[in-house]
């Protein structure tokens, strides 16, 4: 067992780190030179280099957002923006350095790959260190690779779509990502191809004060289906790390894309992510978002319902433990008639944790015969725990059906006594109630992920409660 194991904090089993033995590590802080260096090391075409530099300007001009969570503790000068962990990506777990392989082993990624995944990308710091997809999918024309490789090998597709859903000017952190992005996934599903088992990307931060800025683009051609899953963890440090991803998705006519996140960052990570999908005629986009850990999360998966028949669903679970602020929600824009959306948000606050639901449903003029239902439920485990709901609904069309429901509940002493009277100890009783509370979402997950999510919650619950 490595020495790192001793550094684990509390119940967060992913909190270990291993020694750094990197090919390249940029200096701290963000300058024009750092951005140029990243682009040069990656051997990028000039349009991408220019795009990055333009984005850097946007980032520098924009003020910090003043709404949402408190971000005042982020020091952009104290962050490493680019770390290249290995010289070359592996197609075999044995090809990658032992300490990195050991990390993913401990997180159970190779085991999961063997059992129930169609493809895996493992990103460590700024780069994907391992990637593999089943051959039969390759033969069908499915592309699943890291974004840097995609830019080299499929420059035209990338150039066409990159930044088309989340422009660099979208928000300060999208600008930041656009300037310093590295890694992330590129997924292309050809017309009519259905990938029945999930593709997974795993994102791991190891270094202290690390900034991870992956960039993901998923294109699902007409009539195709894909379920993409991402997981994320980091070591527990006392100083802050920053994770700021951008995810763009296009679900073309009749396609269905499901994007599942089980994030479990350590308590020192600012997780500020922009995720947005466009759903075209009769397409379905589903975000399933499990937010555990992190110091602050601000994340509002969005769906633009572009054409008639499009459907957007956002199912999210947030667990705010001691000292955490989960500011999560959803954003749906109905741009066309006969479109449907559903938001189901479940949040749990424990100790001094704070969970906020922040959601926007917008029905644009002309988007008649639209339906939207929003439901957010909050569960409080302690007296000091906090929950807030900020639902915004903007309707500029008459023929729409909109439902909104919000509940706040506390774990009742009577429920606890009932479960404990059947032999379950207090923490198991709590976690069972919490698992039951989020069951409407876990039942949507493949079994392995549902089990994982419940297990993570049990870990969160196993500290002192009450």
């Amino acid at each position: 067992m490595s020495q790192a194991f001793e550094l684990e904090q509390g119940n967060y089993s992913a909190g270990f780190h291993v020694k750094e033995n990197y090919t390249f590590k940029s200096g701290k802080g963000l300058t024009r030179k750092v951005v140029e260096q990243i682009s040069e090391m990656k051997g990028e075409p000039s349009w991408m280099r220019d795009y990055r530099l333009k984005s850097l300007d946007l980032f520098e001009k924009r003020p910090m957002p003043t709404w949402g969570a408190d971000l005042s503790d982020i020091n952009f000068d104290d962050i490493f923006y680019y770390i290249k962990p290995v010289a070359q990506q592996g197609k075999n777990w044995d090809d990658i350095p032992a300490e990195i392989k050991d990390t993913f082993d401990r997180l159970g990624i190779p085991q999961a790959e063997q059992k129930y995944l169609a493809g895996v990308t493992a990103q460590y710091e700024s780069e994907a260190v391992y990637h593999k997809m089943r051959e039969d999918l390759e033969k069908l024309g499915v592309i699943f690779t890291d974004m840097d490789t995609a830019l080299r090998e499929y420059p035209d597709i990338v150039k066409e779509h990159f930044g088309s859903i989340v422009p660099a000017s979208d928000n300060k952190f999208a600008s930041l990502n656009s300037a310093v992005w590295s890694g992330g996934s590129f997924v292309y599903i050809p017309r009519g191809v259905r990938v029945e088992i999930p593709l997974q990307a795993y994102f791991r931060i190891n270094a202290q004060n690390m900034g991870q800025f992956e960039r993901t683009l998923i294109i699902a051609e007409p009539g195709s289906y894909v379920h993409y899953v991402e997981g994320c963890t980091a070591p527990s440090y006392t100083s802050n790390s920053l994770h700021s991803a951008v995810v763009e998705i296009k679900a073309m006519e009749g396609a269905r894309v499901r994007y599942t996140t089980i994030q479990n960052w350590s308590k020192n990570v600012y997780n500020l992510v922009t995720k947005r999908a466009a759903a075209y005629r009769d397409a379905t986009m589903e975000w399933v978002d499990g937010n555990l850990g992190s110091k602050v999360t601000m994340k509002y998966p969005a769906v633009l319902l572009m054409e008639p028949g499009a459907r957007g669903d956002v199912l999210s679970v947030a667990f705010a433990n001691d000292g955490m602020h989960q500011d999560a929600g959803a954003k749906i824009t109905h741009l066309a008639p006969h479109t449907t959306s559903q938001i189901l948000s479940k949040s749990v606050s424990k100790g001094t944790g704070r969970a906020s639901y922040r959601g926007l449903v917008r029905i644009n003029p002309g988007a008649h015969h639209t339906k939207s239902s929003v439901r957010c439920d909050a569960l409080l485990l302690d007296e000091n725990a906090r929950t807030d709901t900020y639902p915004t609904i903007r309707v500029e069309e008459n023929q729409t059906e909109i439902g909104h429901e919000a509940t706040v509940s506390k774990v009742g002493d009577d429920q606890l006594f009932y479960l404990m009277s059947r032999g379950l100890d207090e923490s198991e009783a709590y976690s069972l109630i919490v698992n039951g509370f989020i069951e409407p979402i876990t039942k949507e997950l493949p079994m392995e992920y549902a089990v994982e999510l419940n297990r993570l919650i049990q870990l969160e619950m196993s500290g002192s409660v009450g």
Partner: protein
Amino acid sequence: MASELVIKNLHANIEGKPILRGVNLTVRQGEIHALMGPNGSGKSTLSNVIMGNPKYEVTEGEVWFKGENILEYSPDRRARMRLFLAFQYPMSIPGVSVANFLRRSLEAVREGNKPVEEGENPTGKMGKRKTVPPGEFRKLLQAKMKLLRVDNSFINRSINDGFSGGEKKRAEILQMALLEPEIALMDETDSGLDIDALRIVSESVNALTGPDLGILLITHYQRMLNYIKPDYVHVMFNGRIVKSGGRELALELEEKGYEWLRPTDDEVNEVTVDA
């Protein structure tokens, strides 16, 4: 040796208000005791205090089970000693299936009550426990469901969520059947049941009785005792057991009501001074 539940001079309050004012009672494995009495006499409180409901504060007295004073034990630890409470108002836990809950409970109860020196802390927090293989669990559960003639669809529903009154009570008995307590406290199991449901639930209880199970059956009415034949009948009034007898006492109560057993003012005062 048969397990014993021994209650000695038990006093308990809720929100500072005395409810139990010196209860003495012994229930052994294999015996059926009926505890009767008017509303508000403290019957339900007694069962809750024995099981360890933290809402109640024990101010005096002892509760011994299998030779241990269990008053300091958490409810889960008491359950793992094979004490069971069938609730008058079972709680619903949305999103948690009966099967999932019962498998966990069975695993927990099978771990038993480990002595303190083996790492068990007094709050009853458990470490890693042996799992019950899903196949074995399903077989066992199905056998119990067949015995109690419970419908199969039961096990995939959320615990008590949307259950009718009768279904809730049957679910309690199913839990009892599976967890195999040595002493079961049954709190107003007959309340809220119509005649048919009462018969079904009573027959279920009867299917579980035998030398390994002691029951303290709390009831307001005699009617359940037409099905479940108690060995002993106790009457509670103002937080004390004021009369004990055999089965004939229940019939006498049916005929005469409870009023004739009301303690005199002197007795009540004496009791109040005690508390």
